[in-house]
């Protein structure tokens, strides 16, 4: 994954065909590349679900900032950036503008 990715214009996309299963406050997702079962907490799940391949990183952050209005926007953006990168490193997210995982 590129060191700078995602930038504000990036369009993160959930791996096509991947399924998430809601469990209590968590979400289980299967990474069929690494063949791992990954359990996302509520925060990471909220990011993963918004990676729809049409919403830009900037809009994704804006939406989550509105949903968590009491928190610092810059802190939210940093958290979301780190989460999207981790999801990409696990093969759960790529960039809709690329054929494969960025990098």
């Amino acid at each position, binding site marked *: 994954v590129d060191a700078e990715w995602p930038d504000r214009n990036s369009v993160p996309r959930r791996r096509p*065909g*991947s*399924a998430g*299963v*809601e*469990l*209590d406050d*968590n979400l*289980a*997702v*299967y990474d*069929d590349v690494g*063949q791992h*079962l990954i*359990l996302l907490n509520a925060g990471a799940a909220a990011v993963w679900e918004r990676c729809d391949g049409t919403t830009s990183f900037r809009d994704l952050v804006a939406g989550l900032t509105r949903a968590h209005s009491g928190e610092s926007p810059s802190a939210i953006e940093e958290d979301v950036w780190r989460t999207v990168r981790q999801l990409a490193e696990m093969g759960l997210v790529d960039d809709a503008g690329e054929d494969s995982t960025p990098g």
Partner: protein
Amino acid sequence: VHTTSSFRALSYGFAVHADDAGLGRRVDDLFAALRDPGPIEHCYTLTSVMSPSAPVGGRSCASARVDVTRDGHLVAECQRAPDALGWLLWDVNRSAAEASGQHLLFHAGAVQADRSGVLLAGPSGSGKSTLCAALALAGLAYLSDELVALDLDTGWLLPYPKPITLKPGPGISALRDLDPARSDALTEPGAGADEERHVPVGDGGVGRIAGPCAPSFVVLPCYQPGAPTTLTSLTQTQAFMQLATNIVNFKKLGDAAIVALGALVARCECAALTMSDLREARSLVLDFVKAPVLEVDRGR
């Protein structure tokens, strides 16, 4: 030569030829609950082979071994008939799992209480076979003690009523204590005290056989000698993550597996069972699954 009935282990059809009629009849008894009129797709042979061995006391003698083959390919060379049965069962299990990959397969046992399927999932040594046998002796219907298939379309558990395999150890004597009147059913001809034994199920064996059933309960047993026997509720997340480790074909099914597993834990009450006392463990499970008291003497 004895040719057995045709059997079906989930999607795997087979029959067995044995040149020792007694051994062949034993196979028929052990697999009776798997009888199926469908086509025989695979054929095992159990062949006695005499081989000369070193002279003993100045006299030469011959010893017999039993070769187990499937479709002409050697599975195992066994020194004793019980070993041959063990290898036969091992290969049937393995082949049944391979042939039934369209289902979600758990390394688990399962029983049916009233209309509710109860999945008992755990690794080898967790006590699931012993617990299955104890619950079957209590009157619950038996699906399997080792490999359970969940139909991805219906979400139901499918029966694979193989003989119950009991490892040597305290489990066998604990089962005998539970039901002394039927302790004969827990013996296997020729098996020593330190060898695993295979217990027939259904008519003439332990328990009655269940049909396909909707799962309502999940129990994750863990045998821990000396620990208090307890049953503890699990969250969906806890049950999901533990059950995932007991899925045989997770990688093959991928996303379909987690969707089916998610649906399973959503519809079931799930609990972890730590057990050292079989009688107590059985009572806890029977209470948990709300099974009517049948043949269980809970007061003892």
